[in-house]
């Protein structure tokens, strides 16, 4: 980010907004603006809407013991540039109300509910500030991410009501589903309002698997934090641990060895392949195309098996570490991997042709669960789900990390926004990932896989974005004494769950699992 661009952004604002900017600073590709609370939503809205920026995260920090206030941050990624704007404002420690950003940026909705839950800061003007992750019987006035709340507190259960959206009308009935589902999947509660066959409303209620991960992280030394990051969302272990490591490495300006950057790309892509294989297999299964589904599951198992062979973990755990990776890929591993990828590629092509050539499957996929470009944009949808609705964004290309700058790959974009489009995007991405791994294997330099990095000094801030199989995820850390002072985690699913509420409208209930599978959402990553 250069001075000129920052100047242009400020110049494009109305005078009232520009006057509300108290302080600016540039750090790398990041511009920081400390702004007055009153203009905070408007400035965020201006950059988001007029500059076509995307909302990366919105979160709070309890800074009361340092500057006697709470800090509120919004991170926006500028369109088409590898640049970010972070807006910071202060919220009084007594008067914990701040003006809501949701009227300006719709996707701030869940963030503000989360901030209300975890910090007790209320967004004034928010349309429905009900609890997001702490509810049912969580006592009011207790906020886990405040510094004076002990992580191991036992909190009394005091019932309080949860207000579901009320959908009324002749012949309308409600189908409540979950939290414990019929399949072996994570828990969450869905309320479908149905008029005849079509779904006319879906309300999601998540938070069932909230484990207090952000709070736990504040007591974890950085080296152990990697283990925690691996357990935020199990099937995205590598993406999360990578983002965590990159954020900590950025905190102490460490440069990791070249070799590890390539190894990280290889494992990131292996993770993408096995996740996407599970998703496309799941899509086939939910159309009752069992043979196709099993075909994909066999391939997924083959990839997890090669993960195991290379790293000793089917989930690629224990690979990332601060300063690189614990283990490189040796000659034997390399040839095994290449061999396996050739097999996966051929077999996957066969699976793909099988699905495409089965009209009864395609009939279920096409025009089902449509997410329009506009909706995807308003909800800040990320990952394959966004790319299937015409949003041309991929962190690997737009904000390159690890060795992605040195690798060439296509980012498939489709515009239909239906289950089929998501199926196609994921299928193409599998082929792209295989090609990325092949390139990385042949370009990977020799050398040590890791270096020792110093412990970050307290009071610094760093973030890392990673394109996980589900889409863009963020780890944002303010360093404390040997461990994070504040660790904000934002999984792709935190944005993408919202797409479900829109995409299922007008569809029949039996198509819900299909739509769900095509977005592939993590409950654990969302609930933290």
């Amino acid at each position, binding site marked *: 980010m250069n001075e000129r661009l920052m100047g242009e952004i400020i110049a494009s604002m109305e005078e009232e907004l520009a006057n509300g900017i108290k302080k600016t600073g540039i750090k790398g590709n990041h511009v920081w603006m400390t702004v007055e609370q009153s203009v905070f939503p408007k400035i965020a809205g201006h950059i988001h809407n007029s500059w076509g920026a995307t909302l990366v995260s919105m979160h709070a920090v309890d800074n009361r013991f340092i500057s006697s206030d709470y800090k509120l941050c919004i991170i926006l990624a500028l369109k088409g540039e590898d640049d970010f704007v972070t807006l910071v404002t202060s919220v009084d420690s007594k008067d914990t109300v701040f003006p809501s950003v949701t009227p300006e940026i719709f996707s701030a909705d869940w963030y503000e509910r989360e901030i209300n839950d975890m910090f007790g800061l209320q967004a004034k003007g928010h349309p429905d500030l009900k609890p997001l992750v702490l509810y049912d019987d969580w006592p009011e006035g207790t906020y886990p991410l405040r510094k004076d709340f*002990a992580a191991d507190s036992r909190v009394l259960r005091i019932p309080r009501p949860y207000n579901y959206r009320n959908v009324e009308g002749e012949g309308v009935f409600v189908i409540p589903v979950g939290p414990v589902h*019929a399949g*072996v999947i994570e828990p969450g509660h869905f309320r479908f309002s149905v008029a005849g066959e079509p779904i006319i409303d879906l309300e999601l209620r998540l938070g069932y*698997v909230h484990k207090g991960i952000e709070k736990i992280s504040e007591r974890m030394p950085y080296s152990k934090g990697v283990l925690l990051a691996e357990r*935020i969302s*199990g*099937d995205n*272990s590598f993406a999360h641990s990578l983002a965590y490591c990159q954020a900590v490495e950025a905190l102490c300006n460490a440069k990791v060895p070249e070799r590890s950057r390539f190894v990280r790309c290889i494992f990131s892509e292996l993770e993408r392949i096995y996740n996407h294989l599970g998703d496309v297999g799941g899509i086939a299964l939910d159309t009752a195309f069992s043979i196709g589904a099993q075909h994909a599951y*066999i391939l997924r198992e083959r990839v997890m098996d090669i993960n195991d062979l290379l790293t000793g973990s089917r*989930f690629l755990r224990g690979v990332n570490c601060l300063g690189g990776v614990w283990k490189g890929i040796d000659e034997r591993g390399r040839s095994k991997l290449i061999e396996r990828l050739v097999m996966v590629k051929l077999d996957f092509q066969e699976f793909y042709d099988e699905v495409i050539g089965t009209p009864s499957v395609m009939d279920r996929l096409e025009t089902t669960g449509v997410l329009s470009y506009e909706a995807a944009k308003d909800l800040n949808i990320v990952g394959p789900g966004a790319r299937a609705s015409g949003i041309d964004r991929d962190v690997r290309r737009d904000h390159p990390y690890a060795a992605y700058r040195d690798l060439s790959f296509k980012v498939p974009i489709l515009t239909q926004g239906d289950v089929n489009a998501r199926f196609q995007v994921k299928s193409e991405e599998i082929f792209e990932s295989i090609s990325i791994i092949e390139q990385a294997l042949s370009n990977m330099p020799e050398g040590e896989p890791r270096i020792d990095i110093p412990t970050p000094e307290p009071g610094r801030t760093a973030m890392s974005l990673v394109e996980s199989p589900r889409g863009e995820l963020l780890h944002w850390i303010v360093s404390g004494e040997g461990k994070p002072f504040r660790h904000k985690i934002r999984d792709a699913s935190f944005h993408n769950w919202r797409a479900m509420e829109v995409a299922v409208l007008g569809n029949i209930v039996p198509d819900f699992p299909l739509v769900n599978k095509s977005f592939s959402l993590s409950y654990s990553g969302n609930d933290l």
Partner: protein
Amino acid sequence: MSSSNDELERSGRQLEARIKKAFGRSLAIREVDSGSCNACEVEVNALTNPIFDIERFGLHIVASPRHADALLVTGPVARNMEHALMQTYLATPDHKIVIATGACACSGGIFKDCYATTNGLDKLLPVDVYIPGCPPRPQAIIQGLMVALDKMKEKAGHSTTSSKRLLDNDNGASGVAHDVF
């Protein structure tokens, strides 16, 4: 692969024999995610893929607790899942086997000592078998189920903790009196 395949085949067949002896039919398992990171789910799901294919050994993962002989629980029991887990437990017919699957369910794992979790499933329910691992490999889950079946035989001789007795108990996992039951 092939040696581990043989291993799988061997333990699978042993398991099958035990199930036949104990039930004369398949063993029905209901899985409950009480707050896992989802990797444990991935491994439980892997059990039913064509590679592991546990159905051939007489293990059946069922959709409802009412059809289950065993509850396979993953996750550190998130505070927000206690109620749902308890209801699932009560909906499972007696005498049921409860299997804590994964480090989280065994002890709370990396999420222990936290306001939002419990330090393991046995703080809430009587657990018969603990399957360690983070996550346990599919083979380990099969092994654990074998232990569960042996326990089952033992249990048949003794009176077991039934849902009724548990209902009278009010020591919730949070260590405070509450009304989730």
